[in-house]
């Protein structure tokens, strides 16, 4: 396993198939790239965000077999442990220690303010989140009376390219029905280089759309080489060939070439730091070691001399395997490692170590032959 190969070429969430991953773990079919699909939004739903526990990404689709899940889990446990304010530094200048806040309990879910915000994820997709307060809903109810009950909550997304939007002059718009309880959504806008704006509101049975809030305006980025040229900087055919290799000429979503290098680059920083993942060594890693006994601390006036010999036998296997040494069970640590330290007696020793997989299908055995012969003198 090489260092770089740890970063999967296609990171989690980027399975090459045509589905979109949801935070709920469900998948939605990605709209096919075609005029019909472009005609409008098939959307991915986003679960209400909070106070749901933070989503820990699990993506069986793209899980790389060489990345074991278990070490990562134990890491998280370990972090939880660290949250305990058990190890306070003595150099701390404050006499009163305030334990770490219970950040989960104190974390605000919403801010009691009706709003909607729009972000561009890429050339084709937008992301929006919103909040509609109880007060806003109440006054909407009051304003609409009976017809409120027939209405549904809707997102209306406007194309406001080259327009100072006044509520009615958008180039076009599309509506997206959202599910109850949702507070954010991914929207397939489809077109790069356009400016967008969204409203959250009530869509009524008589066709009216009454907004609760209007978002900021954002622009979807370009996704291909520009056709606009600068006559002062004419590009010769020869230069075009050299500076713009073929693979950059295609249009549409990002190209493979950019992805190849981009992926690895982005995955480089933190993924590698701290080494939170490890390819489990399995049954390898058998090293034998000898260590000397502790240096005597006794202060006796008499000259003395002693020699001890220890042998340490240790190793690792699957965490749920069972291991025996000369027929006696060896206790495994949670991560599948074990270690035993022996005082090594004179003579020849055979140590038979056997590991058996949890399902009993596999066994592996080693026999170690150790001999020790100590004599006085040189």
């Amino acid at each position, binding site marked *: *396993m*090489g*260092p770089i*190969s740890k970063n*999967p070429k296609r990171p989690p*969430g980027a399975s090459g198939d045509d589905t979109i991953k*949801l935070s709920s773990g469900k998948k939605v079919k990605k709209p096919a790239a075609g005029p019909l699909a472009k005609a409008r939004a098939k959307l991915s739903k986003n679960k209400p965000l909070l106070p749901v526990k*933070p*989503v*820990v990404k699990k*993506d069986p689709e793209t899980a790389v077999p060489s990345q074991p899940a278990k070490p*990562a889990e134990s890491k998280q446990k370990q972090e939880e442990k660290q949250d305990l304010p058990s*190890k306070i530094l003595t150099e*701390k200048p404050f006499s009163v*220690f305030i334990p770490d*806040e219970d950040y989960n309990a*104190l974390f605000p879910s919403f*801010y009691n303010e009706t709003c909607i915000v729009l*972000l*561009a994820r*890429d050339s084709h*997709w937008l*992301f929006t*989140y919103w*909040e509609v307060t109880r007060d806003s809903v109440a006054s909407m109810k009051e304003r609409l009376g009976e017809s409120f009950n027939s209405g549904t909550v809707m997102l209306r997304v406007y194309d406001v390219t080259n327009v100072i939007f006044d509520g009615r002059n958008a180039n076009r718009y599309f509506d997206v029905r959202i599910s109850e309880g949702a507070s954010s959504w991914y929207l397939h806008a489809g077109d790069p280089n356009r400016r967008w704006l969204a409203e959250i509101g009530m869509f009524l049975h008589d066709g009216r759309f009454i907004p609760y809030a209007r978002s*900021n305006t954002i622009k979807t*980025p370009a*996704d*291909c*080489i*520009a056709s*606009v040229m*600068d006559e*002062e*900087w004419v590009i010769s055919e020869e*230069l075009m060939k050299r500076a*713009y290799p073929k693979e*950059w000429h295609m249009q549409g979503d*990002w190209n493979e*070439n*950019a*992805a190849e*290098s*981009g992926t*690895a680059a*982005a995955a*480089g*920083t*933190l*993924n*590698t730091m701290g*080494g939170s*993942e*490890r390819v489990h060594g399995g049954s*390898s*890693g058998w090293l034998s070691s000898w260590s000397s006994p502790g240096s005597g601390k006794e202060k006796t006036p008499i000259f003395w001399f002693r020699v001890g010999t220890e042998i*340490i036998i240790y190793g*690792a296997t699957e965490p749920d395997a069972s291991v025996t040494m000369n027929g006696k069970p060896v206790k495994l*640590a949670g991560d599948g*490692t074990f270690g035993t330290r022996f005082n090594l007696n004179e003579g020849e020793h055979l140590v038979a170590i056997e590991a058996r997989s949890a399902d009993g299908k596999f066994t592996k055995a080693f026999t170690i032959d150790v001999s020790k012969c100590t004599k006085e003198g040189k």
Partner: protein
Amino acid sequence: MKGYLSVVLHAHLPYVRHPEHADFLEEDWLYEAIFETYIPLLLVYERLLKDGVDFRVTMSLTPPLLSMLSDPLLQDRALNYIEKLIDLTSKEKKRTEYQEEFKKSADMYNWKFVEARDYFLRYGKNLVNAFRKVQDAGKLEIITCCATHGYLPLMINQKAINAQIKVAVDTHEKHLGRKPNGIWLAECAYFPGVDYTLKDHGIKFFFVDTHGIMYGVPRPKYGIFAPVFCPSGVAAFGRDVESSKQVWSAKEGYPGDTNYRDFYRDVGFDLEYEYIKPYINSNGTRTFTGVKYYKITGETAHKEPYDPQFALERSAEHAGNFLFNRGKQIEWLASGMDRKPIIISPYDAELYGHWWYEGPDFLNFLFRKMHYDQDIIKMITPSEYLAEYPVNQVSAPCESSWGYKGYHEVWLEGGNDWVYRHLHKAADRMCELAEKFNSPGDLERRALNQAARELLLAQSSDWAFIMKTGTNVNYAVRRTKEHIVRFTRLYDSLSSGKIDQTYLSEIEYKDNIFPEIDYKVYG
């Protein structure tokens, strides 16, 4: 001489300082980076200087990194970290005495760690001084980054974006004695218009990913092989795909060579528990120690012993190969261009040494070979290139990042999109506070400045990135929530006029980044 190569190393770590804990796992990121990447790189630079090799390298030292490198608590802990490794490797030298295949690695680690410690102490435990020395020698151009590596295209609030740049430039000047000429935008994430903010703070250039230039309007004449001027007049350099791929690519990249050191097989996991216990996490969990005896070997669980000498020779071969390819690339480009092309090769600095153990050797060989063995290509910094070519085409780069798919999806997806509601709200509230408090009292001022720190810390793109990649997710979630909670409590207390001084002192102590910050940066 037909063209230029600019190697850009982005050195960054999120602010992982935890004074409230004696031992904190994520702080190790810093210590690993110091002893496995920064010092090995600095040793390469210093030896090149000593040998009279004319080289150029550009590095972004991010404000959180500068702050941590110059923090006395972290410096002491870093020293403690390396002392422990020296202790361990001294033992390892003994333990492997009869194992020739490991003994040479154990010896190597031991002397390298001793050398690194001595280097660290020589600069008074402050590596910023060491970087500064190479900078002042004219070989290293140090640029800045967003104040806390904030992801600007998803920030919206213009004042918050401005604060990310202003605080960065101030921090840079404080530590490096001069204002930065250039910036590495966090995650290479650019959106049209942010260049005006850069200009406001005296920044003359930045970098974008390949398609940021290629999709620019109007179409840039030289593609990524010359900078363009944004409408603001700030220059944008584009990342070269070919040279990136040779180092980054999982398949073809040099670091995957089977002779190079394997990252995963570490004595922290491999050795007997009681023996290794003092060198792993203090809660008893096995972790990486940095002492690794095996080479990559291949896609197999069976690993062969690492041979440092052989690996060193491979890194020299790879440097030669890299240089050969750049030479070919430059010749191909130069014949079609009416100016000397520049190849921009940016990497995360921590790739070198920490991840690709032989990376610093590779750079060492590359710089030397470039100096001695050929004259097609020369190294240059972006500032020097702009001085040679002050006239460039005006083109507006395309919004982009260097993340997967080239836009914002890495930092805006199902696992992390929840953070933006809170980051946006806190930014808006910070601006509201800055407007409201014109002449605050001492305590209020402290609370306002601390609120600015909490906002900035919450904005690190690292948290969203970690949530996306799925490792250490709890920590990233915790950091986001903690800073938002602390910010919100400060906001509430400032609004109600009841500031809890003990609490304020507590979080000033915990989140002490940017001691000189002035909340009015949000005004």
